């Protein structure tokens, strides 16, 4: 983390803002990944929805 902080350009405020942004993006990506992977754990019990709706 320290190395990443030092590598970032700009004054400390900008560095902190960039790190917050990176953390938020990572959290959103993790949420999407977990939601996708959650489909293998529990789909909600639906039955081949696409074939039913067409």
């Amino acid at each position, binding site marked *: 983390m320290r190395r990443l902080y030092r590598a970032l350009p700009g004054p400390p405020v900008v560095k902190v803002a960039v790190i917050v942004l990176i953390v938020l993006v990572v959290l959103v990506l993790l949420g999407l990944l*977990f939601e996708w992977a959650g489909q*293998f*754990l*529990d*789909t*909600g*019990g*639906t039955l081949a929805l696409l*074939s039913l709706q067409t």
Partner: protein
Amino acid sequence: MVFRRRFDTLSAPMKVRRSLRVAGWVMVTVGALLVAFFAYQLVFTNVLGARSQRAAEPALEERYATAEIEVADTIPITPPTTTTIPEGTTTTTQVVDAARYTEPTPDMGTPFGEIAIPSIGLDKVLFEGVDVPTLKKGPGHMPWTPLPGQPGNAVVSGHRTTYGAPFFDLDKVENGDEIVVTTALGTSVYAVRRTIIVAPTDVWVTEEMQGAWLTLTTCNPKYSARQRLIVQAELVEGPNYLYVEAERQRGLREAS
């Protein structure tokens, strides 16, 4: 490339140490991700599910208070009878009808009833729809099947282990157990008739059936979406019970 060049300049023992350190960090990261994943799915989503259930109650109360119940159809259940009143010459013809009551179709994603299975301690708000956002709120009714309480096969799907896990203990339901569904129409009681395990593609369990049925579907086994656990229950009491029975009797008469 820089990393590769640096790594090549290291002595053999240092290369082993560096490789072990990298492998260690990879395993710690994967482990942390797995812990975070299961915490998200099994704790966080259940908190969200419980919150959605609580948030749905005012809208449900409003539906109960405002939904207009209509008589969609009637079937005479007694043949016309002629009665001669002893005091005079007046005759009375009496016909008793069994009525099919209907309620307005709920909007997608909105709460419209409650489902309870006393034998497994289930009591949840029912929503209209089986799309991903709706099922996160609670058990959802498949919109292309009749509403619970109506003749035909009403299908309700629900999560097994996540988002409030409404059907967590559905495998513990036994034949004869009661399933109570309350909607604006009133309370309909179903008795469990069969429990089966099918493939996720076995859509035949949602097909139309004679009488009035409630089909519950959820994932099986727990923590896997490999199969579907299906519980089918028959209407034994409710606003449309008389109509369903009359329809069955009429069918039997026509068949004979």
